[in-house]
């Protein structure tokens, strides 16, 4: 799992690349979100375009990231979900929990 961080205005965008799976990408996502929060970011957008596989641990990390950010009065959203990630969130009805966008500009705009 590689994570690249960039900013668009006051929105922190994390580009996730690779697998979000147990013992590998799950910890990386947690660390990246914690780092963004520690740096004062309240608007976090996870760009999932490069995610190749996500398992239940990875889904758990997304949920944890969502609740952690929300509990700190921040907002976490997702953009560019590959179909397999959409399917896996659909199965556990988490697709209704996250705010999800197909277009990055639209996602960034939604924070304002």
């Amino acid at each position, binding site marked *: 799992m590689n994570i690249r961080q960039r900013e668009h205005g006051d929105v922190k965008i994390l580009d996730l690349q690779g697998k979000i799976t147990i013992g590998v990408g799950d910890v990386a996502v947690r660390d990246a979100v914690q780092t963004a929060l520690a740096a004062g970011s309240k608007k976090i957008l996870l760009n999932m375009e490069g995610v190749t596989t996500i398992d*239940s641990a990875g889904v758990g990390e997304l949920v944890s990231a969502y609740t952690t950010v929300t509990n700190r009065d921040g907002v976490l959203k997702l953009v560019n979900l590959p179909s397999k990630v959409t399917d896996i969130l659909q199965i*556990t009805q988490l697709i209704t929990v996250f705010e999800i966008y197909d277009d990055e500009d639209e996602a960034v705009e939604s924070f304002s």
Partner: protein
Amino acid sequence: MEKVAPHAHLTVVSRFESIELVLAVVDDLLKQAELNGETRHWVGLAVREAIANAVKHGSREEEERIRVEATVEDGEVIVRVRDKGPGFDPDELSDPLAPENLLRPSGRGIFYMRKLMDDVEFRFDDDRGTEVVLRKQISSEEDFARTEEDTG
């Protein structure tokens, strides 16, 4: 010459790092059975969850081993994962779709296995440990590769 059904046995150390090794073998086996990338992905994810569970809950001592057996025969993928864990009551698992569980960070692995496969069976034995048997019918046309890209 009679065609032999793809079959693999492997024993791996009970660590999360072993998951990719098991998946590489299982994926190769499913390719030999000419299953397409989509079907291989979902079977692989179910196997990933089974191995992760075995690593998390199946070790009574360090350097424990996990045994995996995979085959494609008579229109069915069967993957057996055996560990030394004491087992659990599958009926006691919480429902990850219940509103109070929706935002829990864990508790979805077996639910995914059951959704992705046709049948998931747990067997518990005091001496042999826990075995999970994953089954998926592949008789449907949509499971098979139609192009070279599908098999890649």
